[in-house]
């Protein structure tokens, strides 16, 4: 039923797919970090239309499936002359989608900085740039690291969806193998084991980060 020989034969294909998965994960996450920051800042903006746009964007992204968003960008935009490669489309959609969730992490991080810090910085006459760079962000960023790590793992687990728009990631590679050989057990088991081991190892590191950066840990030190 389960042939290790066959598994070893298809492993190079799956590993090539895993490289694409990793590219999509980090590419998507980098974009999500930027999109999330822009959204978090936009929601604090004094201009009402900007706030409304950011709220609407977040609501829309969180209430529609990533799969349909992928289809939309991949199949609709080309008829308007905008043509991206499948992988780029995937990275774009992952970043735009997860960015809507990450905005909330930034918001929580910034809100967690005590009011006294803002007041003290302002009474010292700090301009916006040093206020943010030297006072707020150094305190807001460390507690954000563990939740951001969790979103990175979450994004990694969303990447198999890119196979639906023809990206040959690790799942797409397994689909190709299965389609050619009519053997499903080995490729899909291998994908499950690969995804599981990567996310377990990553989760271990996130837990370590949590211990290091959580406010409780600092107090007890």
């Amino acid at each position, binding site marked *: *039923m389960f042939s290790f020989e066959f598994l070893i034969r298809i492993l190079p294909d799956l590993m090539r797919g895993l490289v694409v998965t990793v590219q999509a994960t980090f590419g998507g996450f980098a974009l999500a970090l930027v999109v999330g920051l822009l959204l978090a800042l936009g929601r604090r903006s004094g201009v009402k239309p900007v706030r409304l746009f950011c709220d609407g964007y977040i*609501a*829309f992204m*969180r*209430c*529609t*499936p*990533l*799969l*349909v*968003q992928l*289809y*939309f960008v991949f*199949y*609709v935009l080309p*008829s308007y002359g905008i043509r991206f490669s499948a992988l780029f489309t995937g990275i774009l959609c992952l970043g735009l989608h997860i960015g809507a969730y990450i905005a909330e992490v930034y918001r929580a991080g910034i809100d967690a900085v005590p009011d006294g810090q803002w007041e003290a910085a302002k009474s010292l006459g700090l301009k916006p740039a040093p206020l943010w760079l030297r006072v707020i962000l150094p305190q807001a960023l460390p507690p954000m690291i563990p939740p951001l790590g969790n979103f990175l793992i979450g994004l990694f*687990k*969303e*990447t*198999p*969806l890119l196979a*639906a728009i023809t990206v040959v990631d690790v*799942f797409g590679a397994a689909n190709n193998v*299965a389609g050619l050989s009519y053997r*499903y*057990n080995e490729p*899909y*088991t291998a*994908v*499950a084991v690969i*995804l*599981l081991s990567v*996310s*377990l190892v990553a*989760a271990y590191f996130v837990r370590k980060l949590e211990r290091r950066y959580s406010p409780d840990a600092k107090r007890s030190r």
Partner: protein
Amino acid sequence: MDLNQLLALDVLPQLLKGAAVTLKLTLITAVLAFVLSFVIGFLRLAPNAWVQRLTTAYVEVLRGTSAIVQLYYLFFILPAFGISLPPTTTAVLGLGLNLSAYGSEIVRAGILAISQGQHEGAAALGLTRVQTYRLVILPQALVAMLPSFGNLLIELVKATSLVSLITITELTFSGRQMVVTTGKTMEIWTLVLILYFVMAYPLTWIVRGAERYAARYR
């Protein structure tokens, strides 16, 4: 977007039929996932070390591999072992198992968040274990769990789109079919996105209401 043309092509009724299937799948899966969440959540808190290990493995495996991979596993590999489930059952089971892993964490966290004093108080009043949970712990824990379960329900609405890849004719699948028959890519995918939004967005109000309700009880 030429609305009359779309109406003539019978697109919207087809998509609405798909949306109805999406809602039905969401409801059935939600019930299954909710029940499983409590079973697994409680088992993880059981004193027996083996029960704990098994349920922890269940949660880690289901959370560590993607929902779509799990659905493919059930859809393509179970038949090879002589277990052929109808596609809808596969879909409900796959999504339900996947979500129960996340849901059980909500249950576990909700119960652990109730202070030890409540347990001691119940014991001092001479309540049995079952009474303690039924009358003291669960009423408080359930309120605290509500917003998280609401968010999980929103994730479920979106996750049902995955089962289009294992041939279930829900909203996303109907969209793909209508694109093939009419070629109106832009209009159809826009409509599909709007329909998902219309189904999922009202749930965010419920989540916000639940958050306010839970905050009042804290």
